[in-house]
C-alpha cells in the first residue's frame, strides 16, 4: 500500500493573509478587502493561492525531513479559500500519498488540499529528495 503523508491542518485567518501580503509583496485587493472581493463575484476575502501552496509545501518539506528537499513542486488552483473575518478564520487540510520512488532516489508525491471539505488544489505534485 502506498505510503501516506500525515494529514496536517492549517488554520488561516485574516491576520495570516495580511502578514503573507506584506512578506510576499502580493497586495491584490481581493486578499484583504471584502468590498473589492465581492465586487468581482467572490464570496469575500480569499487567501492568496500562493499562501495555500506554501502551506502544502510546508507539509511536504516536513514529511521529507528537510526544508531544502523539494526539487519540483506544482499545483493548479481550482477553488478559492474564503477567509471570514472571524477569530477562527478557516482551515486548510493537507494530505499526500507517495506515487513513485524513482531509481535515482526521488520521491513523487500527490498532494490533496481541502477547505470546507472541497478540494482547493488539483494536479498538486511534488518531487522531493527524501533524507
Amino acid at each position, binding site marked *: 500500500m502506498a505510503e501516506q503523508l500525515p494529514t496536517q491542518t492549517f488554520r488561516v485567518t485574516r491576520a495570516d493573509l495580511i502578514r503573507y501580503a*506584506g*512578506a*510576499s509583496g502580493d497586495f491584490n485587493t481581493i486578499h484583504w478587502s471584502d468590498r473589492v472581493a465581492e465586487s468581482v*463575484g467572490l464570496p469575500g476575502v480569499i487567501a492568496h493561492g500562493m499562501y495555500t501552496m506554501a502551506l502544502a*509545501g*510546508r507539509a511536504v518539506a516536513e514529511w521529507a525531513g528537510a526544508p531544502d528537499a523539494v*526539487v519540483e513542486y*506544482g*499545483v*493548479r488552483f481550482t477553488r478559492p479559500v474564503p477567509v471570514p473575518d472571524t477569530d477562527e478564520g478557516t482551515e486548510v487540510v493537507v494530505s499526500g500519498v507517495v506515487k513513485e520512488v524513482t531509481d535515482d532516489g526521488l520521491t513523487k508525491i500527490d498532494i490533496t488540499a481541502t477547505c470546507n471539505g472541497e478540494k482547493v488544489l488539483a494536479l498538486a505534485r511534488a518531487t522531493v529528495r527524501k533524507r
Partner: protein
Amino acid sequence: MPLDPSFVGRSWPATEPYLVGREKIREFATAIGATDALYHDLEAARAAGYSDVVAPPTFPVVITMASSGRQILADPELGLDYRRVVHGDQKFAYTRPVVAGDSLVCVNSVDEITSRGGHDFMTTRTEVSTEAGEPVVTVWSKLVQRGEEDHG
C-alpha cells in the same frame, strides 16, 4: 478583449539583480508559519552546507511575480485587465534552493496564450539564475483572465 497572441514566444531582457536578504527569507518563512531551522538559523544552515539561510520552496515567487508583472502584465499592449485575473497554475523546478546572499536575475518569457469558454489563459516562464549565470530555479505561472460576464 482577448490577450494579444503575439506575446507568445517572446522573451524579455534579464531583470536587474534581486539581492536575497536573510531577513526577507526569515520574514517570508514566518509568514507561512515555517519554523525549520534552515530558514531562520544561520548556524544550522551553515552546518547543512549552505552559505546562509535557505528560502522555503515557494519563496522565488516574491521575485518572479514582481518581475513578470513589471515586464509582461503591465504592458498595455498585452490587454490584461488585472481586476479579472486569478491564479491558475504555479510550478517550480529547482536546480538548487535559493539562499540568502544570492543575487538573482530573471528572464521572463510567455510560453502560451489560449482562450476557452470566454476565459483567457497565459503561461509565463521565468528562468531565475545568479548574476554569474548559475541556474537556480525555473518558475511557471498560469494566469486566468475571467470572462467579463463572469462577475458583477
